[in-house]
């Protein structure tokens, strides 16, 4: 017995989040009626382009039961690679450099895959360590300075909008990526095994899957998407900024968003669609807070509290599942 589509939509996590997004928009309109402009809409969508790509990698990894603290450092480092390739090989087309940067991103992700899966270090702490390593390196490379990236083609990628609308062309690409990953997650053997590995690695192993390999792929994928995200960000900012993303900590925002969208911190559940809706909520909210000229502490507090709330909801949901599997000797994997 399948639930009817309408029922599923009403019961779905995304519905609540979409209502919240509308609420944010209404509140913004009430407080600052002039805020709902085309320029602001374009800003929000541009932001969403970066967070969308970046968040998919984080959410995928989370579903597989992993988390990479160094994700934003990977973005910065990949942008550094992009910058250096452009500087060292004059006349190289920007997209070739971008491909090299994305390959570099895969390697950065691979390093963490090696630490977490090969050396079996605690992923949380080990990736914190790596974020410090790459963060220091990224600053050292330009002595902490910003470096402008003046490539008109590169900047145009993120700037061009569809006709007269505030929707960047890139946004279409981002949606396509989210859809493509959703299809992988829902309709391929690999995608399904991600949830299995996240939900119960021991069972996955006994069912003949290779949890180590699947998690490693997810770390590498996270690195690749972090690199793409980093390129999008630097294209929008038209520069290499060694500290910008670290201060922004988009992996935490993505984590919160994914969890609001129902991805469990314990791995093994959730969908990318609702994670994307979660990201949309957070970026709309943070931009709304900005336009309302609210003080910085308020914005920081909202971000922190959202994460705490998402974690609390997740804790209770996991407890409920554990109870339904009671006395079966079922082990819910933790991050430790």
């Amino acid at each position, binding site marked *: 017995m399948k639930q009817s589509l309408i029922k599923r939509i009403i019961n779905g996590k995304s519905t609540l989040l979409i209502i919240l997004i509308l609420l944010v928009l209404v509140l913004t309109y009430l407080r600052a009626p002039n805020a709902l402009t085309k320029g602001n809409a374009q800003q929000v969508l541009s932001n969403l382009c970066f967070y969308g790509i970046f968040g998919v990698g984080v959410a995928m990894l989370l579903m597989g039961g992993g988390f990479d603290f160094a994700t934003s450092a990977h973005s910065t480092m990949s942008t550094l690679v992009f910058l250096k390739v452009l500087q060292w090989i004059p006349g190289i087309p920007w997209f070739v450099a971008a491909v090299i940067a994305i390959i570099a991103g895969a390697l950065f992700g691979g390093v963490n895959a090696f630490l977490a899966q090969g050396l079996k270090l605690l992923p949380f702490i080990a990736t914190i*360590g*790596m974020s410090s390593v790459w963060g220091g390196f990224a600053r*050292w490379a330009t002595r902490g300075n910003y470096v402008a990236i003046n490539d008109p083609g590169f900047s145009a990628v993120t700037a061009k909008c569809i006709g007269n609308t505030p929707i960047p062309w890139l946004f279409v690409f981002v949606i396509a990526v989210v859809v493509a990953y959703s299809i992988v997650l829902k309709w391929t053997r690999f995608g399904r095994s991600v949830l299995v590995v996240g939900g119960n690695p021991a069972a996955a192993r006994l069912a003949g899957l290779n949890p180590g390999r699947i998690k490693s792929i997810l770390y590498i994928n996270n690195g690749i998407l972090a690199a793409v995200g980093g390129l999008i960000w630097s294209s929008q900012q038209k520069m290499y900024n060694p500290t910008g993303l670290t201060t922004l900590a988009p992996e935490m925002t993505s984590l919160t968003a994914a969890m609001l969208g129902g991805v469990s911190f314990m791995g093994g559940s959730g969908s990318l669609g609702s994670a994307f809706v979660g990201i949309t909520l957070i970026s709309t909210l943070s931009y709304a807070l900005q336009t309302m000229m609210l003080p910085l502490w308020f914005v920081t507090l909202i971000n922190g509290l959202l994460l705490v709330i998402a974690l609390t909801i997740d804790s209770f949901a996991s407890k409920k599942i554990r109870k339904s599997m009671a006395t079966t000797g079922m082990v819910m994997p933790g991050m*430790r």
Partner: protein
Amino acid sequence: MNNLTRTSLVKRVIRTQAFTLLILLVAMILIFTVLAALNGAKFFTGKTFVGILQDIAVPGFLAIGAGCLIVSGNIDLSQATVGALSGIIISIAISWWGLPWYVAILIAFGFAAAIGVINAVLISSIGMAPFIATLAMSAVIRALMQLLATDANGSLQSTITFTDPTLTTIGGYDIIWRIPATVVLVIVAFVVYGLILKKTDLGRSIYMIGGNRRAARLSGINSKGITYFLYINCSILGAIAGIAYTARAKQGGLQALSGDQFTGLTAAILGGISFAGGSGGMGGAFLGLVVLKTFYKGMLIVGSSTYLTLVLSGALLILALSLDVWSQRRQRKRLGV
């Protein structure tokens, strides 16, 4: 009736990671002395060692708090942020609110204890993973800092200076050769906490919780109460570190202690306090800290930049983790598990 004894002291000492660290420390001093000489600088001087001691004072408190928590199988990533918050609190309490220094410190402790309680609620009562819960808390604390550091005109002050003769005298007081009094304090704290961990029933309970939480609870150990105590303790020690830093710097700042965010953690793990819980001690954590700070100092003298220090601090954290995993594996092998 036969009578058995414990394993001999010598054997036990050699098996500890602290012993390995001691050897590492000596080797490091030798290598840096040679390297520095090659670069035309000097490493083996009184100034260097006084510098290392100065660097230990603040992160020492952090390492103690973090170490105790890790022994019990927990972690607190918000500790250094609590330190920065305490710095802000005493600065504004003294310079904006005109309160005496001891009241300021009491307020800072109050906040720290409250944060410790919240951490413990999230982790012990609600059941969140410690890493992420304390990380989320540090965002909330940062918000609190930003709120407090906003002055009457509504502009955010990134540093707040204050003048209080008593506090700055205590913080800046040097005993001899520019060795600050706080160094003595931190060493005393290391000894006291070392004794608590190894010699008291509370300490033993902490180890047993780290070794097997469920078994400890079923044997009558109040694991929830002790977890609460440890998070509060960790927060308060973070506050002490923040106050020590602020008192010497004569100002509180939003970025205070950010360089030492993971120093306490790294030192504790490097010193043999295992993430598997239930092993290591304060002696190891202290040595870990000394090794860490000697290494940074050495690298600076040999000619590294501050950026490179950041790289190294990350690399050392990973090295410490690898050592932890490696020594666990070696032990397992020795025991044939």
